[in-house]
């Protein structure tokens, strides 16, 4: 279904993503873990074609994504929704308009400039908001909502795109634990009920363990782990996060602490 062949991204002489290769044959929920700067975001941005790859290929259902240009590229982006850490909504527009932005690729520029969306789309947008439990907020401005609510608006916008893949770049990194759970539950439900593929960058191990069917670990741009969550042992986790030299990122994860309390104590001391 989705296939990456030695996908590489270089910024100057620095290699952000180094020959990433993996295959996904059926829709599943995939978590990408690794410390900041490991290339997780760059990988997702290349999948969405927000940024171009330096070399390598992305194939989706046999079609080469990396070669798409102009309208074809935008059409791919509309099928491959992206959710951001900082939500990336238009703060001064109301919630429903933000959700309707998910249809921009299908509508004419002129109609969208004057906010002329079909009634069916507006009704569908409110139904999606209701599914995520925030229909009451429909007429409010996006900026008036809490972080957790804004992230659900962003998920609603993604769903409005009716995408094959949902990419989530650190979707819960700016949220408190309660809202993080609501957002992750929503993503999991979307995967299970709609059968959409979800690829999420996560910065905590326990989230990846709890919600994902498959975990990919990245370190310094390279994929160093690819397997089921239960194969993610302490040794592997240490390897992904570069334990010893720089353990601070891993120590913030509750999972690491329970896995290896001795190491975490060492860092504290």
């Amino acid at each position, binding site marked *: 279904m989705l296939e990456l062949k030695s996908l590489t991204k270089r910024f100057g002489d620095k290699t952000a993503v180094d020959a990433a290769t993996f295959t996904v044959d059926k829709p599943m929920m995939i978590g990408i873990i690794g410390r900041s700067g490991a290339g997780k975001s760059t990988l997702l941005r290349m999948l969405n074609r927000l940024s171009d790859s330096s070399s390598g290929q992305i194939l989706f259902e046999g079609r080469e994504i990396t070669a798409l240009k102009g309208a074809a590229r935008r059409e791919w982006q509309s099928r491959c929704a992206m959710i951001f850490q900082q939500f990336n909504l238009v703060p001064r527009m109301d919630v429903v308009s933000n959700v309707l932005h998910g249809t921009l690729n299908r509508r004419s520029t002129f109609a969208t400039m004057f906010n002329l969306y079909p009634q069916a789309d507006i009704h569908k947008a*409110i139904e999606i908001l209701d599914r995520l439990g925030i229909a009451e907020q429909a007429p409010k401005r996006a900026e008036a909502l809490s972080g957790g609510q804004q992230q659900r608006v962003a998920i609603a916008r993604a769903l409005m795109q009716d995408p094959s893949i949902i990419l989530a770049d650190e979707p819960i990194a700016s949220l408190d634990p309660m809202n993080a759970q609501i957002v992750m539950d929503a993503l999991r439900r979307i995967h299970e009920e709609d059968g959409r593929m979800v690829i999420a960058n996560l910065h905590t191990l326990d989230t990846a363990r709890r919600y994902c069917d498959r975990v990919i670990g990245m370190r310094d741009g390279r994929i160093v782990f690819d397997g089921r969550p239960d194969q993610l042992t302490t040794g592997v986790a240490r390897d992904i996060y570069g334990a010893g030299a720089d353990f601070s990122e891993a120590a913030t994860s509750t999972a690491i602490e329970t896995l290896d309390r001795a190491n975490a104590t060492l860092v504290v001391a």
Partner: protein
Amino acid sequence: MTDATLHSPQRSVGDIQTHYMALTRQKRMYSGIAIAVFVLLMVSGFYVADARNAGGFWDGWHQILDFPAGVLSEAWEKRANLPGLMVKYLPALIETLNIAAVATLIGVIFGLGLSLMSTRGLAKWPFLIPVFRRISDILRAIPEIVIALVLIFMMGGGPVPAMVAIALHTAGAMGKLYSEVNENADLKPVEGLASVGANWMQRMMLGVIPQVAPNYLSYALLRLEINIRASAILGFVGAGGIGYELRNSMTWGQGRFDEAAAIFILLFITIVVVDQVSSHFRNRLIGTGGH
């Protein structure tokens, strides 16, 4: 789940949809009215202007290019003169630039004071905000050419009246622009400085200015460009500089259009240089202050 909306839906989805559609229809009606008014104003305004015009727009518009074409063809014939003429007019250009630079500097300093005095949340005397706002309104409202003509009448021709006229207008414009920049400044650092016992001047210079300096600089440099043009125009009414030379070469009819062309080229190069230099300095300021 802590979110109240999740398990206490006071209204059904149908209600929300109906309500939102009503809102949408209302918004569409307002935008429709706004567009209709806009079109009406455009069309009626054009017809009023056209009716009052001595020649009439439709009869005259195809002659628009005649004058530039005349200047260009004559300048092209005498293109060998252009480098020499550009050197000849360089001192006049420098005079114009001088007027613009001094006027911008003085205007920006006064505008800065006016803007801090007229921004809500920052002003030293909040009850005087309307007074300072009206002062910058007045400074902006009077065209600089009027001030320059009055001053030239009183003081005689020369660069000083032009400088004063441009500086006054700049102070008014900058008071307005900078106060809008100030409104977007974060008040938390100001509060932090107030908590250590800083006085108003210290709070402004150390808490506000570092945040807004890149915007200040970029508006000031844009203003410098505008003022170079204004200072050239004021030359037409006797303030000296390159505008005076331009008027002479353009109004004395055919035969001196090569001089006009040389002056236009000089002005164009000046604007390009100012633009390049200003973006360079702005990037440097943001680069060092951004992290």
